[in-house]
């Protein structure tokens, strides 16, 4: 059926008349899982977002009330601001670093690649709980590694209040530490699609390192690249556990460490209003949706090639 001329001509990449059943077979496990464990719960949360609840039997319809309140809820805006700051920070700092590392480690002639690769990846091996612990020690005011190191070297303020006034930067540093190697692995995998031949051709055409990156490597890793960007935007937006642990369950001073998901969690569980929580969740989803669409558009361009 999918090979009916009309159906496929409209299809940009019409490749073959593939049996209609095969695709669904291949996707069955995924669909099963996503429907059962995402869609179903999700629908109930859609319903929830128009209500104010406490548990199943206590729930009244507030229509768009949740969203209206959200708009005027200073906590929400703080959370949003923090989250966006964090997201920008980690996307703009972490990913470029990961890519650079991947490029460096992809050089065949680099000695000790394995060691570097393993070392750089190792932070992911540690559970977030311990990352919290470690960085509590690192960010401490008087005794923290950072402050002491910087104090010793550049006379930095030994009482610099990382986890009080500069929570988001601290979080960016911590997550970068943990995930720079992780994203590097994605990029390493992606770099395998770069055709050696094209690199050679580019050299002959007089392309310098940058141009080779720009015209040979980048296009080849674009699909995965955009994916990693999207993923870390989403990941950053859902930042929760690390601050939850670092700030033991609170939003930190003046809620400087309050993230959207943390707020969602607080309202949803700590004050038991799943309705309001769902509303927050949906606003998040909308924002991320926008990013996703953007990513699709970009990577579409890549796929044409």
């Amino acid at each position: 059926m999918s090979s009916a001329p009309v159906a496929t001509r409209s299809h940009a990449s019409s490749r073959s008349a593939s049996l209609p059943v095969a695709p669904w077979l291949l996707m069955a496990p995924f669909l099963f899982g996503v429907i059962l464990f995402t869609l179903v719960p999700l629908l109930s949360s859609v319903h929830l977002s128009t209500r104010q609840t406490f548990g199943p039997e206590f729930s009244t319809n507030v229509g768009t009330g949740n969203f209206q309140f959200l708009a005027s809820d200073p906590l929400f805006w703080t959370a949003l601001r923090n989250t966006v700051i964090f997201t920008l920070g980690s996307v703009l700092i972490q990913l470029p670093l990961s890519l650079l590392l991947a490029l460096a480690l992809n050089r065949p002639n680099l000695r000790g690649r394995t060691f570097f690769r393993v070392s750089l990846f190792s932070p992911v091996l540690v559970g977030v709980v311990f990352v919290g612990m470690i960085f509590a020690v690192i960010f401490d005011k008087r005794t923290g590694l950072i402050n002491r190191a910087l104090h010793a070297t550049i006379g930095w303020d030994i009482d610099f209040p990382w986890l009080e006034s500069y929570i988001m930067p601290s979080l960016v540093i911590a997550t970068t530490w943990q995930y720079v190697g992780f994203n590097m692995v994605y990029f390493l995998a992606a770099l395998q699609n770069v055709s050696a031949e094209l690199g050679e051709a580019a050299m002959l055409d007089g392309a310098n390192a940058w141009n080779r990156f720009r015209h040979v490597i980048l296009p080849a890793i674009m699909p995965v690249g955009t994916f990693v960007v999207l993923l870390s935007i989403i990941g950053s937006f859902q930042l929760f556990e690390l601050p939850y642990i670092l700030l033991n369950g609170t939003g930190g001073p003046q809620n400087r460490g309050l993230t959207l998901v943390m707020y969602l969690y607080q309202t949803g569980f700590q004050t038991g209003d799943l309705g309001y929580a769902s509303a927050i969740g949906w606003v998040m989803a909308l924002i991320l949706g926008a990013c996703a669409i953007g990513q699709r558009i970009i990577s579409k361009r890549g796929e044409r090639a």
Partner: protein
Amino acid sequence: RTERSSAARMWTFARLHYSMYEPAVEEWNKTGEPKVELSLLGIQAVEQRMLSSFLTRKSGAELMEIERRIASRAFAGPLDGVGFLDLTDRIKAEGLDQKINASSFTPWSTRGRIFGLPHDVHPVMLGYRADMVEAAGIDVSKIETWEDFITVLSPLLYDADGNRRTDRYLLNMWETHMDTIEVLLLQAGGGAVDPDGMPMLDNDANARVMAHIAAWSHGKNRIAADAPYFSASGNRLLLDGFVVASFVPDWMCNVWRNEIPQLGGKVKLMPLPSWERGGRRTSVWGGSMLGISRDAENHDQLWEFAKHLYLSPELSRELYTKGDIISPVKEFWSDPMYDKPDAYFSGQAPGRMYINLAGDVPPRYSSPFSVLAVERLRTVASRLATYAKAQGDATPESLLPEAKRLLIEAQDEVMEHARRNRFITPAEGEGS
């Protein structure tokens, strides 16, 4: 479907508790019904499972030992929406309200109903570096109020390396450390929520305390510094004598004992300085309860078990010997073990000292808004601190108006949320 074993499940979040309960549970399982199955969970896990099971009315545990901050989250809805069994009548009927230290009930009470059996009292004292104080020839018995505290101990403030940054402070407290702030608020008779569970941030007590805290840590003559509790660096600073005195609830003794053995014999305890002469000399920090799930069958048997576990003399002994925690059950207080001098605290008998203060422990009420309100208080504290820094030579008096303003602002914000809650109206609060 999960095959629900006939045994009743009980969750606890503290390894110490777990080890203490095991014998008691075994003993109960010999004769008692239903059999109880004790399991240890991370505190975060307990919280999520409790809430999930309450919210979905599904597959919780029959018995849950809950830490205070978490417990309050179960009280978000209308009274008959609370997941815990209402124990008020049972407690009153059996006169437990007389038997047990009154203030211990408050955290598990909302709108006049009690939902948990208290586990502890947790009075707070000041733990101070006796060695330094005595070396300076200072007599702490002169201290009665916070003013005294400052005047008496101020000689200890000094700048070791002459870099015009003080290297020893009097009090271990910080505007960001909500626990200690709450300790002081409660001591002064303030707090986050009133007995009806309604936010009450904008009272004079709160304002006064806030003003002081800000002044202490950023004002003209600063006495407070931050040696974070429960952290390596904090302990390090205590060892170095960066701060002289810290807030020490009974359980904290146990923490110090284990984490900073080096302080043994160097520290002593004293009652908190009061806010005005003759005022309250203690406060409260932390605490947990045992709750019974409303959805459990056989409530009565579980209630029996709860009492068997919590009110037993063995437990009270365990609590003190293993965890330095005094029992909430008044009749055990006569136990001589509390008088045993403690080498770690230079021969003092902490047990007795805490028990003497237990009666004064201030009440602290729980409500769906506790978390929110406390968060707000924290924000106020930190805003006020910023204000103080800006002011330069701030004093409690100079900060008071700003403190009031901020608190009122905070109060309004929390009320915003409170008014939103269709399930708890102030009216209903009075209702019960």
